[in-house]
């Protein structure tokens, strides 16, 4: 059973529909016991960092999420759902993140005339597949282990992004893929049972469905 957390932060139906099309059993989780009774959790989310943390707190879900992760059960954070895994965000006025991953979430500077939000289809440079390049965050002082989400996903596949903030993990070994938008940022993070993707797999056509399938079959 995959619990999809519903905390009022945007559309959860696309994720549910995509997972169900892959044969997964899902439930919309609005309370802590829903999380406890599931073996996987998906935390979607669009909107503001503060609101997301506030809503999770109001619904009493933070403890259950942390317990789920601590118990080595699989977790997938999408977009804002990934960002709140970190300790803090430049977007937040008061809220702290879950702190599951060390590091912060930063805003794109817009330097060089780059438009912010970063919106549209961009490529994944996948650790273990992408050749090491100068200045690239991946394959640099890390063991190039392929993240299980990328089984049968070719390097440089296109996925859909829609965000103004990006994660900057302290520990580079959690970076499973990067994407270039003025800078190379961590577009996928992976630490044991915890996965986070900055793009929207549920909106990324075949590539996105493949990545979700890999999560379902973990």
């Amino acid at each position, binding site marked *: 059973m995959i619990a999809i957390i519903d905390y009022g932060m*945007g*559309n959860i*139906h*696309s994720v549910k*529909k*995509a997972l169900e099309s892959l044969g997964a059993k899902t439930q919309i989780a609005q309370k802590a016991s829903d999380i406890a009774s599931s073996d996987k959790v998906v935390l979607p989310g*669009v*909107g*503001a960092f503060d*609101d997301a943390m506030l809503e999770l707190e109001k619904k009493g879900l933070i403890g259950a999420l942390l317990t789920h992760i601590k118990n080595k059960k699989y977790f997938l954070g999408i977009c*804002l759902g990934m960002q709140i895994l970190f300790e803090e965000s430049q977007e937040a006025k008061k809220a702290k993140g879950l702190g599951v991953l060390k590091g912060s979430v930063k805003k794109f500077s*817009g330097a060089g*005339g780059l*438009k*912010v*939000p*970063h*919106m*549209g*289809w*961009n*490529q994944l440079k996948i650790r273990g597949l992408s050749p090491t390049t100068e200045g690239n965050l991946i394959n640099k002082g890390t063991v190039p282990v392929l993240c299980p989400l990328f089984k049968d996903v070719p390097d440089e596949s*296109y996925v*859909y*992004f*829609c*965000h*103004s903030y990006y994660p900057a993990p302290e520990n580079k070994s959690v970076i499973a893929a990067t994407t*270039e*938008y003025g800078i190379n940022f961590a577009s996928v993070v992976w630490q044991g049972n915890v996965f986070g993707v900055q793009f*929207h797999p*549920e*909106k*990324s*056509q075949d590539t*996105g*469905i493949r990545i979700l399938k890999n999560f379902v079959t973990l």
Partner: protein
Amino acid sequence: MLTKRIIPCLDIKDNRVVKGVKFLGLKDAGDPVEAAKAYDRQGADELVFLDITASFENRKTLIELVEAIAENIYMPFTVGGGIRDIGDIRDLLNAGADKVSINTQAVKLPELIGLSAEKFGSQCIVVAIDAKSHMVNDKGSAISHKPQATSKHWQVYINGGRTPVDLDAIEWAKTAAALGAGEILLTSMDFDGTKDGYDLELTKAVSDNVSIPVIASGGAGRPEHFYDVLAEAGADAALAASLFHYQELTVKQVKEYLSKKGVRVRL
């Protein structure tokens, strides 16, 4: 590298795709759900759904139709038409829209842009601007088609292009961006439906003046037009409706052409 986006648009009236009569290979030519599925298969980068009569007739976009479309596609989906307040936006996002496009109400109540961006995030708030050119003399008064006209301006129209308002399109785009819009959907009323190409001058003027993505709309007729607006005028995305509805071109054909010409697209 971020690619340029090709976006088919479904203009919806009374739950049917307007102009959609010749959609080849579809059971129901004007069925928006079938059209949306076809575009998903063609590899469209995004889909825009505009309830073109909603604002004028003061009726709300039909939530059920949004749900039905969202249920059937795996690409980002923007919905516009008749949005009045935060509640309307929430309803559309809950129904499966990824972004909402606000036009008339953004002009009437600009603070809605900031409120909704704060609530739902800038990335899902698109401000749509319908603009029409007119010539202005050095005193600032409109003297269209007169030889002494000195500079070209674009005036903003609301209510589906029916009502001119006292706003300059470039200034309005800058204001909308500053208020928190995540994207501008820019339609040239002069070029819309002509198939003579996008309004490159207007698109460039807006794109150069805002730091958020600009979707160009109105006038697409041939693959070269997409190249011109994306490569020359600086648009981040190009939208077309009837061209794709009538299958004069498929999304794939446009993208293949662009790729050959060196424009980054997702094939």
